[in-house]
């Protein structure tokens, strides 16, 4: 099939073939029909990665969403095995009423299990739960030569550790077995509070360490002492037995939504916004849908950035350098005047996922969005990379579409292990960019 397939940032427009994987065909003949010597393949879940990890210019993308069946579920223990194209949205439709939720969720429910594994995604509870991979018990890998591997910590452990965070390069993940987390409610008790400075952010994070979910929305227009101000949010799942899953349409809960997040169309000064928005001073009970997935309520919000799309930049800076590094980053953004509307700051805990190439480590992460204004934006992003590099940090491939090869290789020093384990028929635009770029073989 042809037809343009874009990643979430919509900034890359590539010529590539798309192939919709069917479970029947996979079972019968594996990947034989889609693999040929001329063109590489890369799996594509729901395309919620912002850059080019799931894109393959000149090659083929394998769309997985029809691989969406549950294979086995034990609702007494919360151990679920499902095909890798199943989305968290669909999983929760089944699991929530039975008192289970994924142990780790990113900020959108429209991600597949395969995508969540391949990027080893994290959520607001990283400081307690680690990344997604920490809760993966096993996975099934289909290689282009037809081999099927069951990988877990005990079995094919090396391949397991390289597939978690392995960016789809080790082969097609056919199924994933997860340990879900028991929940006593679909609702959380949530506190959103004003935070006036970066120092206060660190204090609030420290004081909230026993809250399972913490995050901060940052005001990128703040200057001087106010740098790092924002709205700090923390939540804890309730135990009131109200186990209702999310609805089919995005819930419209303006009151409980951190509505200022959605207001990115207007670059109003944060202060005004802050005083005006009752949602910004919210303490109460909130359903998981608006709490974890506020942006899912607006279908296709990524198109608001217009035809050129946008870039995300998410870095992680190690604990010792975090205060300095994050302040510098925010100052660079403020001075550049290119306004990031969505900025998210989060303290991460020690990593417990086995993923060798996973983004997450202990430290502090900052995620920024920038409309794609061409060279100007790319220059700013390079400047941010340099700052991250100076402080010993790294950036998140799931959000990246442009980092320099040298920076990638320096910040993910074990990349050669993934290159070794890569299925020879699999490759992506991202992988060629960060491993084959000129002058990057240091």
């Amino acid at each position, binding site marked *: *099939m042809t*037809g343009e397939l874009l990643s979430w940032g919509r900034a890359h427009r590539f010529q590539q073939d798309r192939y919709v994987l069917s*479970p*029947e065909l996979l079972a*019968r003949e594996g990947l034989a029909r889609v693999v040929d010597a001329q063109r590489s393949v890369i799996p594509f879940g729901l395309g919620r990665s912002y850059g080019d990890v799931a894109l393959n210019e000149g090659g083929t993308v394998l769309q997985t969403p029809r691989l969406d*069946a*549950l294979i086995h579920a034990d609702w007494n223990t919360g151990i679920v095995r499902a095909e890798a194209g199943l989305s968290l949205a669909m999983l929760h*439709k089944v699991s929530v009423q039975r008192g289970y939720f994924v142990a780790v969720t990113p900020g959108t429910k429209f991600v597949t299990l395969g995508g969540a594994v391949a990027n080893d995604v994290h959520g607001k509870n990283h400081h307690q739960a680690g990344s997604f991979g920490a809760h993966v018990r096993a996975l099934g890998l289909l290689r282009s030569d037809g081999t099927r591997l069951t990988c877990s910590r005990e079995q094919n452990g090396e391949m397991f550790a390289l597939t978690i965070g392995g960016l789809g390069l080790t082969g097609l993940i056919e199924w994933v077995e997860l340990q879900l987390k028991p929940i006593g409610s679909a609702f959380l008790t949530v506190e959103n509070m004003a935070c006036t400075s970066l120092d206060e952010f660190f204090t609030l994070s420290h004081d909230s360490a026993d809250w399972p979910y913490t995050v901060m929305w940052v005001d990128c227009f703040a200057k001087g002492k106010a740098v790092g101000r924002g709205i700090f949010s923390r939540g804890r799942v309730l135990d009131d037995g109200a186990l209702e899953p999310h609805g089919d349409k995005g819930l419209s809960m303006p009151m409980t939504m951190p509505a200022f997040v959605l207001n990115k169309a207007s670059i109003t000064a944060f202060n005004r916004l802050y005083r005006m928005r009752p949602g910004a001073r919210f303490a109460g009970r909130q359903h998981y849908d608006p709490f974890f997935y506020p942006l899912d309520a607006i279908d296709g919000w990524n198109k608001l950035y217009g035809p050129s799309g946008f870039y995300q930049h998410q870095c992680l800076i190690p604990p010792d350098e975090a205060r300095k590094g994050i302040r510098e980053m925010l100052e660079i953004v403020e001075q550049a005047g290119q306004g990031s509307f969505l900025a998210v700051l989060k303290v991460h805990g020690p990593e417990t996922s086995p993923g060798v190439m996973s983004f997450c480590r202990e430290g502090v992460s900052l995620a920024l969005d920038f409309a794609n204004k061409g060279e100007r934006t790319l220059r700013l992003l390079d400047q941010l990379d340099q700052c991250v590099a100076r402080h010993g940090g790294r950036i998140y491939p799931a959000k990246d579409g442009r980092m320099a090869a040298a920076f990638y290789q320096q910040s993910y020093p074990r990349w050669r292990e993934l290159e070794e384990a890569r299925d020879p028929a699999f490759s992506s635009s991202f992988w060629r960019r960060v491993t084959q770029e000129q002058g990057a073989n240091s």
Partner: protein
Amino acid sequence: MTEQTIPRVAIIGATSAVAHAYCRRLLQSGPVSLVLAGRDRPALERIAADVTARGAVDVQIVAGEIGDPAQVPQLLEQVRGQGPVSLALIAYGVLGDQKAQQSSAQELVRLFNVNLVSAALWAEGFAAGFEQAGSGRLVIMGSVAGDRGRQSNYLYGASKAALERIAQGMSHRFAGNPEISVTLVKPGFIDTPMTDHIEGKGGPMWATPDKIATLADKAATARRNSLYAPFFWRWIMLIVRSLPVPIFHKTKL
């Protein structure tokens, strides 16, 4: 709910994307017992595992040539073998290549055997069972293509149109019994393997299998006789049907 009150549901063509979505939809409102009939046993096993994990009980697979009229009677026996069916969905269908159907007798006969003759046999089989039990619901997948003959797919359209007459007549037959209902679902475009060959598919005219399944479930529960899915096809088909012949014949539809 006790075992006895769990409804027994038969899905004919359970490997269809819409049928699978329909099973999932049913299971969202509580356990059901399922008989999954189709041609492809491994594919049926995959679906059986999925619905079992979602709370279906007592899932049975009936594998065979469900679209072959000669096979239907004995497959029907197997489907009804384990107890009375209270809800049945006839979902399978083949679109095929109109050009091939025009020029090959074999293709043409096959199309009508699959979409019409075998489906009619299944429908009559279930109707007889419902009559005996005094209750039951039958859901049949038709298509908007049955509304007006168009050069690109009138043979497929004719098979679906005839199915519509059968459903319509059955609704009439059971009009006196509110416990028995027949629902004909007429979808427009659905994003399923059946339509994968269509270039540039996607966009507001296309529905997901889940959307169609949800509408079918609602309509069957409300015992509606027929529906366009989604509803806007009603207006589109009203226009398509009312176009005067001279104008219609100028289109390439």
